[in-house]
């Protein structure tokens, strides 16, 4: 844990520090290019010229070390599930996960006979925002990302977690 993290009782100074930190972290969450299947093409389309993700500060990074948000875009299979867990661990804190598409959320159209399909990526990594759709439209993905930015702003990194 960081030196000052979660150490302080809730008071006005720490609250404003939290708001500043939350604002700083939420303005440009770089997303981790984790394109698995059809949702990856929609993620590419939303990063390209018409629905530009750079407007909301989202820049594609291809290494977990430089990324804050992991967008799991596509079907996570059993063989891939172990890699997803390992890659999530290798991301730098504070990290967030968006499960894009119904395949990543719950196995999607492959839920019934997909012996090799992981029924939902939340069995492996903690997920922050679920984006429904198969594949979700770029507008849906952008709405999910904005929802995530709101969630980052309300986080309280410095105040002690009331256990």
């Amino acid at each position, binding site marked *: 844990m960081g030196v000052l993290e979660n150490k302080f009782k809730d008071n006005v100074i720490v609250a404003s520090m939290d708001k500043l930190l939350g604002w700083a972290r939420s303005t440009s969450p770089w997303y981790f290019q984790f394109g698995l299947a059809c949702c990856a093409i929609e993620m590419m389309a939303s990063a390209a010229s018409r629905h530009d993700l750079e407007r909301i500060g989202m820049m594609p990074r291809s290494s977990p070390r430089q990324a804050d948000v992991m967008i799991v875009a596509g079907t996570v299979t*059993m*063989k891939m*599930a*172990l890699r997803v867990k390992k890659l999530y661990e290798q991301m730098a804190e504070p990290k967030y996960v968006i499960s894009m598409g119904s395949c990543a959320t719950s196995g999607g159209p492959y*839920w*019934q006979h997909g*012996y*090799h399909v*992981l*029924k939902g990526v939340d*069995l*492996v990594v903690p997920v922050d925002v679920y984006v429904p759709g198969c594949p979700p439209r770029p507008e849906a993905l952008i709405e999910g990302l904005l929802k995530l930015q709101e969630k980052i702003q309300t986080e309280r990194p410095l105040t002690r977690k009331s256990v």
Partner: protein
Amino acid sequence: MKIAEIKATIINQFPDSVLESEDLAESQLELKADQWFEIATFMKEDPNLSFDQLECITGIDLGVEASLQSRYNFHSMEHRHKVEILITHDRNEPKVASIETIWRIGDWFERETYDMFGIVYEGHRDLRRILCPDDWEGWPLRKDYEGQELYHGIVIPKMKEEDGWE
């Protein structure tokens, strides 16, 4: 070259390895598995057959207790004619010669059919699973395949017909 002539040239070249069965389509030819490698090399080298493209190898499970079958589709770029070869294996230890050294794509097609059905292709240089992970149990596409419960600690929920998630 018409399909009948193709079958004729193969039959009179390897008379004893051809099986006659009536419910086959016109372009199909059923063979026994023993001389398969020689027939395959003959089909590739023979000038007026010259099947140089192996289109597809399909593994088929004919029924819960019935035998397995692997069907080869061949096509010749030169003469633009096609043929389909069927080879039946029994269910417990399906074996057939590998044609991977003749057509290079056979390598992956055979690995996939092995992965899905468990049909062993002898003489294959590197017969491993290609789609499922290496430590996957069972042959997924067989009719009597029961999915495994647990894989590296991740539960694979079983969908019961009547009461939804288990």
